[in-house]
């Protein structure tokens, strides 16, 4: 008869750095939108081309009153209430990039937004470094997150299965798509956030001018910072969805206590089954 057994899935280092990272990224995202709202437009290159932004969130006066408008490479989209501007609680049209209800703080304050952003940027960097040192020295990165040749060959099958919403996740480890998405976030997107963030600092640009060359100029760095943040949001949406559909309590318990229940062929030992 099959039963349940508990395995120790996440180490204390992974669990604590994970949740600190959740808090840091949440504050960074919300304060980042506050900072973005101070000039809700994006450009490529070194300097801003005010008449020809790559992306701009603005507003227009129409016969129906003011509308929030998002322009992407010259195309205009009506995004009233979401981007560019919308009607606030008092029924007044308010200009913004992102709505003030999702920025930090929840009223216009570039100064406060910057304080929150840079404080939690340090939290993110220190926490991320601790995680990386742990992940490399403990073998976590190689053992748990790096797919082997066999897994890589099975990637086509796994994509088809996921497309059918059949999640054949190996219970003791991660699925190949899961491993790859974690690796992309950990080794590409999050470092990219840091690199492009530093490139926006005139002090860092003087210390390390090559930052400007890597990212194609300060305004390109700012745009990449925005795109990379959007991709991380997309990752979080999918990540949370997968947590919900693949056994939410078991997943959450394992990221809080480390203990993760798996099916076992043999009857589970009594004291563990009582858990």
């Amino acid at each position: 008869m099959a039963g349940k057994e508990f395995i120790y899935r996440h180490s204390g280092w992974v669990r604590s750095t994970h949740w600190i990272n959740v808090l840091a990224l949440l504050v960074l995202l919300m304060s980042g939108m506050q900072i973005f709202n101070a000039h809700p437009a994006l450009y490529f290159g070194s300097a801003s081309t005010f008449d020809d932004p790559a992306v701009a969130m603005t507003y227009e006066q129409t016969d129906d009153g003011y509308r929030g408008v998002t322009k992407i490479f010259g195309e205009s989209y009506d995004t009233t209430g979401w981007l560019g501007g919308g009607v606030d609680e008092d029924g007044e049209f308010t200009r913004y990039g992102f709505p003030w209800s999702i920025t930090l703080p929840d009223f216009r304050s570039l100064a406060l937004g910057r304080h929150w952003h840079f404080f939690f940027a340090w939290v993110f960097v220190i926490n991320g470094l601790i995680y990386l040192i742990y992940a490399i020295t403990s073998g976590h990165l190689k053992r748990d997150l790096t797919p082997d040749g066999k897994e890589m060959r099975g990637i086509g099958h796994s994509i088809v299965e996921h497309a059918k919403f059949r999640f054949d996740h190996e219970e003791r480890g991660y699925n190949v798509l899961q491993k790859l998405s974690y690796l992309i976030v950990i080794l590409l997107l999050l470092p990219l956030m840091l690199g492009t963030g530093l490139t926006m600092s005139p002090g860092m640009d003087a210390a390390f001018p090559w930052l400007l060359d890597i990212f194609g100029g300060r305004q390109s760095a700012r745009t990449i910072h925005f795109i990379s943040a959007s991709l991380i949001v997309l990752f979080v949406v999918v990540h949370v969805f997968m947590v919900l559909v693949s056994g939410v309590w078991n997943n959450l318990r394992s990221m809080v206590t480390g203990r993760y229940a798996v099916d076992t062929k043999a009857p589970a030992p009594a004291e563990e089954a009582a858990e």
Partner: protein
Amino acid sequence: MTKRESNGAANSGMNRRGFLARGGALSGTLLLGGCDGLFRNDLVQRILASADSLTEAVQRALLTPESLAREYAPEDISADFKANGSINPDTPDYRKLAENDFKDWRLTVGGLVETPLTLSLEDLRGMPARSQITRHDCVEGWSSIGKWTGVQLSRVLDQAKLKENAKYIVFYCYDDLGRGDTEASRYYESIALPDAYHPQTILAYDMNDETLPIPHGAPLRVRVERQLGYKMAKYIRSIEAVESYDDIRGGGGGFWEDRGYAWYAGI
């Protein structure tokens, strides 16, 4: 938040239990979304601002006096260099000077110096000049590239001979950005000596090979190329060497600093 706006939290007696309670309250209000008190809380602001000191310490350790801000090519100059903050001061003393093309304008250099100076634009233009094509980064997020010509601040300071205890250079300006019609509501800024003596820190009187226009700070603005735009005071009236800026106006060391922005603007 300015020091003057600080609420009762700072005066309500700090002890360890209070700190823990506030830490718990911080997490609680953050989770519940009732954030207004949190954002305006003085202690929270002080904790957050502690990261500025860390950032400044790290950047100062990474930056040598020789670390220059990137200089660009003439073809990189922005045709649409944005003018921000005050763009046409309406204070009577400034209007009077502008009407006469700033011929009566004089820069005074005082404070903790051996030789106080009074310099005309002619005097400044007679000193060795430096030109640089640099990127201006606004705290709002945008950048523009322009060519600046002026005299290195270090030359002016050397002429005035700083006293031993001088630690900061303060710039007082003509524009009343605070709209208070008082001396205290006018723009001012301060920088530390490593920035004051940096080779790219110049008192600019020309922009893009023409006389500095009024929207960009005529007759004289400072360029502090390794920091953000708000450090680069426009419409300069006088320069003062001081040991501390604590007792100047709001005590933040600058117009925007008194309104909550960080004094160190290298990030």
